[in-house]
């Protein structure tokens, strides 16, 4: 591998963190808990989602341990059901949905558009408190004895046949949903109204475009989930019977409503990740993203088509054959913009000047794993194929390739990319490259065997399984162990870097975004004076010219 690097750090003997920044502007717990600063809220989010990620991860570890043997022997089947339910609820609603938008997006979007903060700083803080309230309800459901509906809350199981804490868990998701709506609302208004002079729509970094698309999904989709959960809670408490066939209700209606949110939710999770990949690939190949407009509009296309494919979760549920046709067709169409993005990123590398810092390694990992995740999605979108594959481990493998292989890789790429900006310090490069490699290997070992065991027919959510599936499950559990190490490593060295990391300087990657033109960590008000934008996104000539100019005036 190439040893060349673009990392430019200030001379370490003389360098120090800036005297004033958002981190030391004010002190004390109160200054954090009552802050309106988008950067501090981003840090609050980062700490909270990391906490929930490790709880959800521990649940995943328990699942994999149970599945080492064909019998249900580590825990009772009820416990297993609770564990995978909590894993799903925590990972989807408390980690994946807020992961990139609420942390990285919150931190960099206002700076990227040249604003001092988000449009509604107090709503931004409220959104974090709602997230925490949702988290507390989730923990309450967990501590009081758990919930075993599966993260999908399927009726009538969830409404009539379980005695666990369904209402607590439902409220948790309901409340956390509002946090997501507020984040989305804030982004939409900020991107529309608060761009700096000269920052036209087509000068926005693609990260902003993808967040704009995801925000639309958050604002329009999440209320439907909220309504659905309210109906489930009302059904449990006063028995209104909307989903109860005995009272003339329709249990399939629940599926329609739930997936009307939960399919777009997949794009809420993945679009911000795609934004990260655009930034990283451009920076480390020193090139404007190939076909900027196509990539920007493909985000919007994914958001629009994403709303019209939900029924592909229900192909075997006795929906009309002809409506299944329509939804299968639309599912095929939504795959196209994703393919465009992958090829455009690959083409961005062409004639670039490529270096292989840690964020770039994660981005390469994303491209490989997301491609597999996306292509296996085509398997599932194809009607006849879906019959055999749905509700098996094939689908588990598919969405983990997209969500973990895609989104989590993108999140880690983003965290490693913007870490110097957030903290002002670098992490140990060799160790972080190792972590990226370990994660990639562990991931493939964990989830690739699940495609095979899924095609063999192993159903998902089984605590016990026929013995012929054991070896593939052992491989998967072994992989999960490696993957666990891959996630613990960044946790350790990033914490270490807070005190001992090298001083990063304002622009260690020589990147073009506005956030890289200000000090690291930034001032509370981001910019001393409002920037005036006179160049396109990813204009490396502009950056070179600017750097030269600076050297002349300073030297």
């Amino acid at each position, binding site marked *: 591998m190439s*040893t060349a690097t673009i990392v430019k750090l200030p001379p370490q003997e003389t360098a120090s963190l800036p005297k004033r920044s958002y981190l030391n502007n004010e002190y004390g717990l109160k200054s954090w808990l009552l802050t309106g600063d988008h950067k501090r809220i981003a840090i609050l989010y980062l700490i909270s989602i990391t906490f929930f990620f490790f709880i959800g991860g521990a649940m995943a570890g328990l699942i994999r341990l149970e599945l080492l043997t064909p019998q*249900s022997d580590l825990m009772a089947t009820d416990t297993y*059901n609770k564990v995978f339910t909590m894993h799903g609820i925590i990972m989807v609603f408390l980690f994946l949905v807020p992961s990139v938008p609420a942390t990285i997006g919150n931190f960099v979007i206002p700076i990227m558009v040249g604003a001092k903060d988000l449009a509604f700083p107090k709503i931004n803080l409220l959104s974090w408190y709602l997230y925490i309230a949702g988290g507390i309800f989730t923990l309450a459901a967990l501590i009081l004895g758990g919930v075993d509906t599966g993260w999908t809350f399927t009726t*009538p*199981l969830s409404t*009539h*046949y*379980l005695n666990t804490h369904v209402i607590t868990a439902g409220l948790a998701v309901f409340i956390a949903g509002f946090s997501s709506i507020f984040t989305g609302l804030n982004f939409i208004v900020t991107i529309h109204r608060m761009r700096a002079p000269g920052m036209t729509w087509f000068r926005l970094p693609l990260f902003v475009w993808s967040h704009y698309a995801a925000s639309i999904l958050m604002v329009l989709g999440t209320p439907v989930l909220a309504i659905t959960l309210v109906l489930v809670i009302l059904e449990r408490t006063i028995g209104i019977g909307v989903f109860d066939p*005995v009272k003339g209700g329709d*249990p399939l209606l629940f599926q329609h409503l739930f997936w009307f949110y939960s399919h777009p939710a997949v794009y809420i999770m993945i679009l911000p990740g795609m934004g990260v990949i655009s930034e990283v690939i451009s920076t480390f190949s020193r090139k*404007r993203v*190939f*076909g900027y407009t196509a990539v920007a509009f493909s985000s919007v296309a994914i958001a629009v088509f994403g709303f019209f494919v939900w029924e592909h979760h229900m192909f075997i*549920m*006795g929906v009309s*054959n002809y409506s299944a*046709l329509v939804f*299968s067709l639309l599912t*095929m*169409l939504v*795959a*196209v913009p994703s*393919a*465009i993005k992958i*090829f*455009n990123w*690959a*083409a961005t*590398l062409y004639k*670039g*000047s*490529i270096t*292989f810092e840690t964020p770039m390694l994660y981005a*390469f990992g994303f491209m*490989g794993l997301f491609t597999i995740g996306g*292509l296996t999605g*085509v*398997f599932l*979108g*194809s*009607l*006849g*194929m*879906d*019959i*055999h594959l749905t*509700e*098996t481990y094939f689908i588990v493998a598919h969405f983990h390739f997209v969500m973990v292989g895609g989104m989590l890789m993108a999140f880690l790429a983003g965290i490693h990319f913007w870490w110097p900006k957030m903290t002002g310090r670098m992490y140990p490069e060799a160790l972080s490259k190792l972590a990226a490699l370990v994660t990639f290997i562990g991931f493939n070992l964990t989830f690739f065997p699940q495609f*095979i065991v899924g*095609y*063999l*027919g192993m*159903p998902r959510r089984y*605590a*016990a*399984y*026929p013995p*012929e599936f054991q*070896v593939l499950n052992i491989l998967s559990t072994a992989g999960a162990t490696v993957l666990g190490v891959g996630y613990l490593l960044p946790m350790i060295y990033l914490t270490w870097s807070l005190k001992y990391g090298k001083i990063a300087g304002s622009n260690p990657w020589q990147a073009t975004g506005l956030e890289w033109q200000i000090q690291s960590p930034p001032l509370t008000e981001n910019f001393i004076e409002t920037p005036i934008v006179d160049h396109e996104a990813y204009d*490396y000539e502009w950056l070179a010219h600017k750097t030269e100019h600076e050297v002349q005036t300073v030297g």
Partner: protein
Amino acid sequence: MHFISPVLWQFLVNWLTHFALFPPEASGIAPYTDALYFFLVLISLVGMAIVTLLVVLFSVLYRKDRNPEATQIEGSTLLEATWTIIPLALFMVTFVWGALLYFRIYNPPTNAMNIYIVGKQWMWKAEHPGGQHEINALHIPINRPVQLTMISQDVFHSFSIPAFRVKREVIPGRYSTVWFEATKVGTYHLFCTQYCGTLHSGMIGQIVAMTPDDYQAWMAGTTSGASLSQNGERLFASFGCNSCHSGNADAHGPNLAQIYGGKVQMSNGSFVTVDDAFLRDSILNPTMHQVAGYAPIMPTYQGQISEEGLIDIVEYIKNLNSNYRIQQTLNTSQVQSTAPAATAAGQISGPGMVKP
């Protein structure tokens, strides 16, 4: 390896000797599903190879050591159109192929034999027309299309036979159907694949595909004495259905003989095909399924008849060719219960309609 961990070694040996990428192909449809799967795996491999090749090739050719200065390229409409249209075309092929397969799997041939399946937490009950009952097992003949009419009596379940490549959700409150034609004698897995609570992973069973002769022998050896329609006839009389659906000219309810499979006109003027679902819904929710020309006097039987009972009655009506036996039963029961009927029965309910 076996010095390090004998257990692991045994697994590996076991796995390598029984390594399978596919479940057995034991139904008529399985080769078709696998063909589409191969096609999809192939385009995935090609797609992956292209992406990997591009990334690796460019990483080698244009790494900073070799190419210190990047050349800025705006984009290329032609290239972008290429990688929009080619995937789109492949996805369209997949769509059409998948749709054809879906219609083949979910549209049963008319000559299929019918078996009823009732799913409940956490077992599968199969009811053969001849009255054979099975739990967590299903015996079927090979080389003959078999249709399953399935319903759940509690939550969502899903009936999955990986070796046949078929699966269908089993839904509370409505019939769903699936069909297959087994091609190989053997015993195959039956899984519930929709999460249904505590013992979801215990809701499994065996599909036993037998030669037609063995199947006949099994049928003869397992019969419980009464066929489904005989059970249905008994229920039909005991719920007093026969008092209104007697087939007489002045009857309160429509004539049910030979009604199955035809069309009836509803009181709102529309025409509806009489199938299993229609019959079931008419029993449970009669006011919503009012046949033209009759007064809405039928009471609901919601909560009074089990799903198995409903299946029996549906099966009975399906096979009802004449009203001769209804009238026979009616005459007998009227003679027997004249005394209580006079006091207990209201104006709309006949003597047999009193709850058993």
